[in-house]
C-alpha cells in the first residue's frame, strides 16, 4: 500500500464539502466564549500571584495556558467557521466539524428519530441556535452548531415533518 501517501492529495475530495456555512455571527460567539475563558484565567492567575509563591514552572504553566487561550481566541474561531459546514438534502443530513480533528457525519433522514434545537444564554445574545439530530444509535447524533435562530427553527420544523412521515422504528 505505497499509494496511501499519494492518495493524500485526493483525500480532501473523497467526500465533497457540505453546501452551507454556519451563521457568520458564530465567529463572534466563539470569540466571546474564548474571551470569557481568558478573563477567568487572568483572575485565577492574579489570585495565585497574591496567594502563593511563584516558582519558574508556574510561569511556564501560565504561559502555556495563556498561549492556548490566545490561539482559541484569535485563530480557532475563524478556522472553525471555515470548517464547520452543513447540508440537509431531501434524504440525508450531512455535516463537517472540528478543527484539529475533522469529522464528517451522515445520517439518512429515514433513520432520524428526534430533532432538537438548543440555545444557551450566550447564544441567545447572538441570536444563534444549535440543532441536534439523533438516530437510534448512541454513536450517531449529528449536531449543527451555531445556526441563525430563525433558520434553525425552520429547519427543525421541516426535519420533524419529514422524519415523522417515515414508517417503522428506524433501526
Amino acid at each position, binding site marked *: *500500500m*505505497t*499509494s*496511501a*501517501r499519494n*492518495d*493524500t492529495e*485526493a*483525500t480532501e*475530495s*473523497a*467526500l*465533497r464539502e*457540505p453546501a452551507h456555512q454556519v451563521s457568520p455571527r458564530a465567529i463572534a460567539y466563539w470569540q466571546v466564549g474564548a474571551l470569557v475563558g481568558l478573563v477567568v484565567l487572568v483572575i485565577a492567575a492574579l489570585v495565585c500571584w497574591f496567594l502563593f509563591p511563584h516558582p519558574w514552572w508556574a510561569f511556564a504553566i501560565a504561559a502555556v495556558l495563556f498561549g492556548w487561550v490566545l490561539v482559541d481566541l484569535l485563530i480557532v474561531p475563524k478556522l472553525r467557521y471555515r470548517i464547520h459546514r452543513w*447540508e440537509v*438534502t431531501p*434524504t*440525508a443530513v*450531512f455535516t463537517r466539524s472540528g478543527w*484539529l*480533528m*475533522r*469529522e*464528517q*457525519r*451522515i*445520517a*439518512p433522514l429515514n*433513520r432520524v428519530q428526534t430533532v432538537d434545537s438548543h440555545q444557551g444564554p450566550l447564544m441567545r445574545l447572538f441570536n444563534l441556535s444549535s440543532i441536534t439530530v439523533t*438516530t*437510534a*444509535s*448512541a*454513536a*450517531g447524533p*449529528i449536531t449543527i452548531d451555531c445556526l441563525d435562530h430563525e433558520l434553525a427553527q425552520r429547519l427543525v420544523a421541516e426535519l420533524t415533518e419529514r422524519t415523522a412521515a417515515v*414508517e*417503522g*422504528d*428506524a*433501526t
Partner: protein
Amino acid sequence: MSDPNDPDGWQKLDKKMLLIGPLQVLRAFAVPAVVAILGLGSTGIFSLMFLPLFIVVPVLLGALPWLTTRFRITETKFELHKGLVSKKQLTAPLERIRSVDLESSLLHRVLGLAKVEIGTGVDDTRITLDSLSQSQAAALRGVLLRRRAASAEPVDETGAPMEVPGTSPLSDGIDAPAPNDPAWLPAPPEQVLARIDWSWVRFAPFSLTKLALVAGAVGVFSQFIDDFGIFDQNTVRNGWARVSDVALPWIVVVLLIAGLVAWLFISTAGYAVQWWNLLLVREAGNLRLTAGLFTTRSTTLEEARVRGVALTEPWLLRRVGGAELATLATGVGSGGVTSILPPCPVAVATSVGQSVLKSDPPLLVPLLAHGQAARRRCHLRMQRMALVAIAAAIGSTIGFNWSPWLPVVVAAVLIGFAVLSAEAQYANLGHALTQSHLVAGSGVWQRCRTALECDGVIGWVVHQNFFQRRVGLATLIATTAAGAEKLEVRDLPLTQAVALADAATPGMLTEFASSSAP
C-alpha cells in the same frame, strides 16, 4: 391455569407463589429481624411478643404479588395489572414484544416455576411475571412470540414491523384461540444450532473474564480476615520472617500451584454452572438460548433484531484454538450484545455464527489489510503510550535518585512490548464487505471480528484526527442501533473509507461523494 370463572381471560400467577413470595421476603427481612430481636432481647419476654409480627408481615407482603397481579392476552395486546396501593397497569402491543425470557432459580425449579420477562420496544423496560408454572410460562412464551410473528406481518425493509391499518393483526391465517385455552397452537419445528459439548470445558481455564470476579471475591474475603484479628501485624511479620528464612522459593512455588489448581477448579465449575445443558435453537423467527445448572435461563431473541455477530478470540483462548460468539441485536437488554456461545472451538463458533446470520459467510472471508500507513499509525500510537511511561520512569528516577538503569530497562521492555502490540494490532486490523454484511477486524491482544448487517447501518461518521489527516487515513464508523451501537473500521485510506461506506449502503452517501459527480 387461568381462572375459568373470569370471563375476560384474566390470569393469575402460580399459586405456589404464596409459598415462595413469603420466603423471599423472609430472606430479605432475616438480617434486620434477627438484629431487632437480639436488640430487644434485653427486655426479655417482651421481644417474643414481636415474633408473630416478624412472621405475619413477611407472609402478607410475600402473598401480595399473587393477590394483586393479573394479566391477559387480548387480540392485540398483553396487559398486566399489579400493585395494591400504587396500582400499575402495563400494556404492551403484541407486535412490540421483542423477547420473552424465562428464568428459574433453584427454588423455582424445585417447585416447577419459571419467571417470565417480556421485553418490549427499544427501551430497556421489561415486564416481569414472577412466577408461573413452567408449562404455563412456556405456553405463554410460545403464544406471545407466535402472536407477535403473526401481527408483525408485513415487515418493512428495515425489518421493523409496520402498522396495518384496518385489519386485525390476527386475521392472516392464524386462528385466535381463547387465551385461556390450554391447547394453544402446535409448536413449529425447531432447528438446533448448537448444543453443549463437554469437551469444550477444556477452554474454561483459558477464559479470563471470570478471573476478575474471583479476584474481587478474594479481595472481599481478605477484608474479612482483617476483621478476625488473628493476622495482626506482629504475628504476620514474625511468622513471615521465620518461614521465609526456610524456604521462600518453595512458598512461591506452592502458592502458584495452589492458585493454578484453584483457578482450574473455579473456572471449570463456573463454566459448567453457567452453560449446563446449553441449547441454541431457531424457531418461528426467534433464536432461543437455554442454559444453566442451578438457575436456568431461557433467552429469546427475535431474529429480525439480530443485526450481526461478534467473534472474539482473547489472546490466551486463541493460543488453544478457542473463541467466543455474541450476537449484536437492537432493543435487547444491556448493551444489545448477547453471548450465545461459551468459549468453544473457533470452528464451532464460526459455523454457529454463520448459521445465525443465515446468509453469506462474513466470518470466513479474508479481511483486507489497511496498508503500510495504517501499520505505521499502529506503531506510532503504541510507542506514544510507551513514551509516556518512559518519561514517568525517567522523572521518578531523577526525583527519587533511583538507579539510572531503571529507565533503560523500562524503556527497553516497553518499546519492545509496544512493537509487538503494534504488530498484533495491525495483524488484526482489517475490513471486508460481503453481500449483506460489513466486517471489521480489530483488537490488540484480543482478536475481534465483528460482522454487521448493512441494512442495520443507520449513518456514517468519517473521523480524521490530526495525524490521520497528514497521511490520508480515516476512521470509518458505521452507526447502528445494534450491539455497541457502532462499528469502527480504523485507519483506512480516506478514499477507501468513503468507497466502502458507499458500497455498504448504496445511495446513502452517493450524493455527497464528489468523485461521483461529473
